[in-house]
Structures are given as C-alpha cells and as structure tokens.
C-alpha cells in the first residue's frame, strides 16, 4: 500500500480516511479534513451589515475538507484528483484554493498531501475576504453561529488539555477541572471556586464575590452606585449549585436597591459611604469629613435655590427622556422624581432659549458676542466691545458716519436702516426712516 497514505493516516488519524480503489486507473479514494491552526490575530466576523461583537472574536476557523482520488500515475506524472468542500468558505474561494493546491503539485511533481495540509492550516487565509482583521462571510446567520461555536469548541478543547496552577489551592490541575473567568480570564480549579463562592453566598457577603486572584482589581469604581462583581452569571452558573445561584441573584438585587440610598463623599481623599434618609434631599453632609455637598452635582453645597452645574446634564436628560423605563426609574430614585423633572424642564427651557437666540441674533464682528436686537434700527453697537456694525449684513460700520452704510446706493443695505422680519412692520419702519433722515 501507498506510503504517503499510511504516513498521513498516522499523523491525522480520524481526519484522514481512505479506501483502496477498485478501479484500474486509480489507487485509492479518500477524504482529508484539515483544521486551521490558531490564527495569529483574532478575527472579527462580519455577515452583510452584521458585525459580531468583540466577545465573539475567533481564533479558529472551521475545517476545509479535500475529497480526493489518487490516480495511477500519481505523483510523478499526474496530480491528485480532488475537490475542496467546506461549510463556510464560498464556492468561488474554494476554487481559488484548489488552483493554489494544484500549483503546489506542479512545483513538486511529488507526494503533496502533507503540503496541502500545511496550506490549508494557515496560508489559505490569503484567499478570504479579510480586511483589518474583519472577516466577511457569506451565508445565513446560522453560518455565523456555527463559526463562533466551532471556535469555542476548539478553544475549550485546548483549554481542557492544558495544565494550570490554581492560585487558591496551589496545585497543578488539568484544564478540564478548571474554569476561566469570563471577564478577567484568570483560571482557577472548579473545586476551589465552588468552595469559595459557596461560602461567600451562604454567609451573604456577596460583595466579596470577585476573582480570587491577588492582583485582579474590581473593574468599576464604587462611585458608580452599582453593585460590583467581576464574576458574571455565566461563570457563576458553572461554579455553584442552582439554589445558591438564585440566592446569589436575589442578594445582588437587594444590594443594588440598597446601593441607591448610599452615596459616596465626593472628596477624593474621603469617599466615605453616606446613607441618605430620603432621595428627595439634595443636601448631604459627610459623616466622616463633614463636607456638605449637593447630591445631584457633587459640588460643595450651593443652597436649595441655586441651580446645580451637572456635568453631563445633556446625557442625563436624554437617558431620562429615553424609552427605557428601568433607567428612568433608577434616575428618579437617585435624584428624586420632582427634582429630575425640574432639571429636565429647566434644561429644555434653556435649549429653547438658545435656539431662539441663535435665530434672532447676530454676532459682533469683533468679539463674536451674540447681540440680539429687539427693536430699533439696524445700526448696532456691541454692548461688550462697543464695535459698531450692521445687524442686517454683519459688516463693520464707521463710527463717525454710521448712517452712510444705509444711505450709500452701492451698499447692500441701502435704504434698510429699518427692516423687520415681519412684513407688517415694514411700512412703519420706512416711515421712521424718512423722518430720521430729515
């Protein structure tokens, strides 16, 4: 029997199958499934307009299969007869790949199945539509999911066979007995994680439910008023029993609500937690450093009647006005319903004001201050820098003969010392104009 076939079988085991051919002009037929190597760079998947999220970046792509027949004159005088098949590579691309593989044989004129596998492990990527680490795939959404699933399986297999040193028990354990935490990627043995989290959830100290690694910090800061844990549900479900998991979720929910009534002192060196008696009270005094501040803007206390300078007022108002009722409730809880309504009302008033100004004002050509004209002539004097200018065209006006701009026939504003936006005022305005010229 053929040496190449036996060698390939020995290396690729179940991925390589063959059968001795009964036909005269061929030696054997078979299939050869080649799994890609780990990609150097993660790929982001794109299907039409859908781009998979960052958490779905892939390191492995599903295999390509060669279905082959070995002709009698292979390898010196005849190439391998074959076609490529795959669940995810477009047919046109498969043809391109086949061409490349045929060239491999042309250059060698020798056994080439091993070389084919090398090409299909990595170099075949050159035929795919990859740009800036984004791989465009064609097909259904199911295909998308299949690629992601395949990648997960390969990663899991690699992980299961690997060895890890659990930082809690200090022992070397095979990956299959370990868990990699989804957020920080730290690995511990399941036994230790289970024992640790079971203890914490049972005694109710769930704020300690974080990655056990010495240097792994909590990701968000406590000032975000949220319960923080870098253990996601996906992790927890794998680690503890079902009833402990639901206890964990319940406790988390409770802590979240309590968290709303806790505010942290805005002084950076203090940051002590302060429990608020009512969410409608704006004034808060830190029991530790005695700093009195406004709960809404975190600035030192400015009295009940003065407005606060809220830093990201726009995004606050927008998220309050958005459809998300959960978010709305959270904001109401934090600021107090009446207060937030006032804040929104004031914000909208100001916005309207600004719009009105930008429509009804002209900028001073020197200092750019917005000057708004309520009545009177178009000869303006900037209240800030005393520059004289024309309200109609925005040009500077000579202070010594200010009306020349309106009396010169070549001026764009000839005869327009008074002109109002509304038609009805026009006549009256012109009348006044005549009178003044006299």
């Amino acid at each position, binding site marked *: 029997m053929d040496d190449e076939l036996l060698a390939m079988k020995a290396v690729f085991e179940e991925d390589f199958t063959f059968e001795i051919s009964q036909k005269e002009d061929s030696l054997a037929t078979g299939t050869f499934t080649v799994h890609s190597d780990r990609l150097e760079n993660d790929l982001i998947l794109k299907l039409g307009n859908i781009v998979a999220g960052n958490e779905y970046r892939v390191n492995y792509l599903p295999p390509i299969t060669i279905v082959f027949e070995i002709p009698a004159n292979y390898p010196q005088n005849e190439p391998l007869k074959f076609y490529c098949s795959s669940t995810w590579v477009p047919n046109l691309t498969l043809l391109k790949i086949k061409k490349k593989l045929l060239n491999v044989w042309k250059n060698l004129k020798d056994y080439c199945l091993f070389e084919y596998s090398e090409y299909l492990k990595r170099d075949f990527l050159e035929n795919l539509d990859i740009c800036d680490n984004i791989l465009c795939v064609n097909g259904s959404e199911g295909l998308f999911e299949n690629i992601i699933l395949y990648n997960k399986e390969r990663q899991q297999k690699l992980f299961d066979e690997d060895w890890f040193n659990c*930082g*809690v*028990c*200090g022992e070397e354990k095979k990956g299959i007995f370990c868990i990699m935490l989804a957020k920080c990627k730290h690995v*511990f043995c399941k*036994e*230790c994680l289970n*024992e*640790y989290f079971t*203890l*914490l959830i049972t005694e109710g*100290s769930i*704020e*300690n439910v*974080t*990655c*056990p*690694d*010495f240097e*792994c910090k909590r990701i968000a800061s406590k000032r975000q008023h949220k319960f923080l844990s870098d253990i996601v549900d996906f992790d927890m479900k794998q680690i503890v029993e079902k009833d402990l998991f639901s206890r964990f979720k319940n406790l988390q929910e409770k802590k979240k609500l309590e968290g709303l009534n806790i505010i942290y002192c805005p002084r950076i*060196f203090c940051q002590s937690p302060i429990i608020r008696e009512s969410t409608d009270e704006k004034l808060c005094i830190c029991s530790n450093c005695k700093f009195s501040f406004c709960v809404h803007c975190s600035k030192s206390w400015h009295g009940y009647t003065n407005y606060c300078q809220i830093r990201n007022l726009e995004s606050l108002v927008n998220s309050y006005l958005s459809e998300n009722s959960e978010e709305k409730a959270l904001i109401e809880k934090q600021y107090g319903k009446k207060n937030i309504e006032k804040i929104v009302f004031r914000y909208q008033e100001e916005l309207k004001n600004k719009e009105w100004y930008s429509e009804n004002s002209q900028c001073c050509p020197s200092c750019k201050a917005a000057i708004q004209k309520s009545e009177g002539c178009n000869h303006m004097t900037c209240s800030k820098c005393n520059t004289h200018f024309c309200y109609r065209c925005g040009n500077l006006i000579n202070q010594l003969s200010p009306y020349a701009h309106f009396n010169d026939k070549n001026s764009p504003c000839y005869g327009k010392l008074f002109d109002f936006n509304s038609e009805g005022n026009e006549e009256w305005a012109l009348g006044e104009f005549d009178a003044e010229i006299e």
Partner: protein
Amino acid sequence: MSSQRRIQKELVDFNKSPITGIEITPEENNLYKWKVTLTAPNNSLYKGAVFKVNVEFSTDFPFKPPKVVFGTKIYHPNVDDDGSICVGILKNEMWKPSTKITEVFYALLDLLENPNPDDPLQTSIAEQYRNDPATFSKNVKEYIKKYC
C-alpha cells in the same frame, strides 16, 4: 480544598525563597499558629528593632484572611494597643484567596517603612506622625527600648 495543605505549601514556598527580616516558626503540633519574628528594615524609623508577630490561620483559610497580630508593643499609627494591624490586604473585604503569605509579610515590612496616617487605628499617633515627626520618632525609639 484543605487549608492544611495550603498552609504547608506556604511554608515550603517560604523556605524556598525566604524574605530577609522574616523568620517563621510554626507551633509544635499546630500548623495553624505561627510565631514570626520581624526585623525592622534599616531604612525605617524602627531600625534595629525585632518584633514578635503572631499569625493564626482558620480552617477557612485561604478563603478568609489569617489573623496577624503584633506580639510586641509598637508605636505605630496602624497598630493598636493589643497589636491589631490595619493593612489593606488583610481586611476581610479586601482579602483575596490567592494572596501568598509572603505578600502579607511584605506588607508588614512596608508598613514599618511607610506608616499610613490616612487609614489609622490610632488617630492621635497618626496626627503626631504628620505634624510632629520629631516627637513621633522619639516615641518610636522609646517603645523599642522598652519592649523589644
């Protein structure tokens, strides 16, 4: 996971790479209690002093931090009269099960070099450390003479 195995491991690891200034002697027949001597770093105000420190592990170790207490009286803003210590990594809510015991000793040595008046157990000593370093230093020396 057995706490005993992990404590044994800590001892083995420590003997493999010991820390200058730290000596550990587990109690006879009780691996869970260690007698430790801590020689103050030369660049600290406590230079020349040798302190006794008691380390006690619970059966919940490493899920709960060990209790670490000064057995020798020391004049320090972060150590109170009965030897209790205020160090971040030993606080219940900050403790991480993968913390190596050597990490704890490094923290203790660091505490001698850099007292932390912002998180004091003894506010009057902390204030003195901040505002009157000369008197603070004098008191440190007196305590060392008297108790070490």
